[in-house]
C-alpha cells in the first residue's frame, strides 16, 4: 500500500519529522527524496510572498498528482505539504517527500509532483515589497509549462 499524505496549511512544517513519519519503521526503503521550496528574496527586496489558494480544490488536486505519481513509479509513499498565507523571505513554502526502494523512482516522482503542483494546484503568489512599491501577482513561467509537457510526452517510467 502506498502511503500518500497531503496537507494544505497556514503553519510552517518540519521536514525531518515528516520524513521520520514517512519512513516509520520500514526497512525496504532505499531512497528518500525531500524537496523544499523556499521564499526567495528578490530585487527589490520582498517583505513577504502572499499565497492565496482555493480551499478544497487545492487538496484534491495535489492528491490527484500524488496518486498519478504513485501509479507511474514504484514508490512506497509521498508526503506533500503546501502552505498558504504570508510567507517571508527564507521561509518554507512547499515540501515534497518521496520514499522508494530505488533512487530512480524517487527522483522521477518527486520531480513529476513538483512540475504538476506548479501548474495544476490552485495557488497564486503575490509579491509584497519592503519599499512599499505596489504589490504584484507573479505570472507563471514558460519553463513550468515546458516541464509539464515532458511528462505528457513520456508516459513510461524513467522518461
Amino acid at each position, binding site marked *: 500500500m502506498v502511503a500518500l499524505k497531503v496537507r494544505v496549511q497556514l503553519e510552517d512544517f518540519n521536514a525531518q519529522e515528516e520524513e521520520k513519519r514517512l519512513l516509520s519503521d520500514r526497512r525496504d526503503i532505499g531512497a528518500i527524496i525531500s524537496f523544499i*521550496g523556499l521564499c526567495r528574496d528578490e530585487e527589490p527586496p520582498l517583505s513577504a510572498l502572499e*499565497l*492565496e*489558494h*482555493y480551499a*478544497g*480544490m*487545492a487538496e*484534491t*488536486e495535489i492528491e490527484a498528482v500524488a496518486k498519478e505519481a504513485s501509479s507511474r513509479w514504484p514508490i512506497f509513499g509521498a508526503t506533500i505539504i*503546501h502552505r498558504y498565507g504570508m510567507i517571508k523571505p527564507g521561509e518554507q*513554502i*512547499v515540501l515534497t517527500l518521496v520514499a522508494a526502494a530505488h533512487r530512480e523512482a524517487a527522483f522521477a516522482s518527486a520531480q513529476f509532483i*513538483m512540475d504538476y*503542483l*506548479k*501548474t*495544476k*494546484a*490552485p*495557488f*497564486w*503568489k*503575490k509579491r509584497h515589497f519592503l519599499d512599499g512599491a505596489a504589490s504584484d*501577482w*507573479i*505570472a*507563471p513561467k514558460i519553463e513550468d509549462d515546458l516541464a509539464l509537457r515532458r511528462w505528457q510526452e513520456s508516459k513510461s517510467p524513467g522518461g
Partner: protein
Amino acid sequence: MKAIYFAWIRERIGLAEEELHLPQEVKTVAELVDWLVGRGEGYALAFENRQSIRAAVDKRHASAHSSIVSAREIAFFPPMTGG
C-alpha cells in the same frame, strides 16, 4: 450558483464570491464569462484577456466549453503559480 474569484480576478471584480442567478441560456463557462462581462467595468477588466483565465466547475479544472448547467460552484482564476 456560487461564483468564486481568485487573485487579480478577485481584485478587479472587487468580490471574493457571489451568488449568481443565471438566465437559462447561459450553459457553458464561456457563456458565463460573456454574461459576467456585461455586468460592469470590473468584470470587463477582469476578463479582458480570456487567454489568461482559468476556470473550475465544482472544484475541477474546466475549459471554456465545459457545461455549468448542474454546477453548484464556478471558480475563475489566473494561471496557477504554486509550488
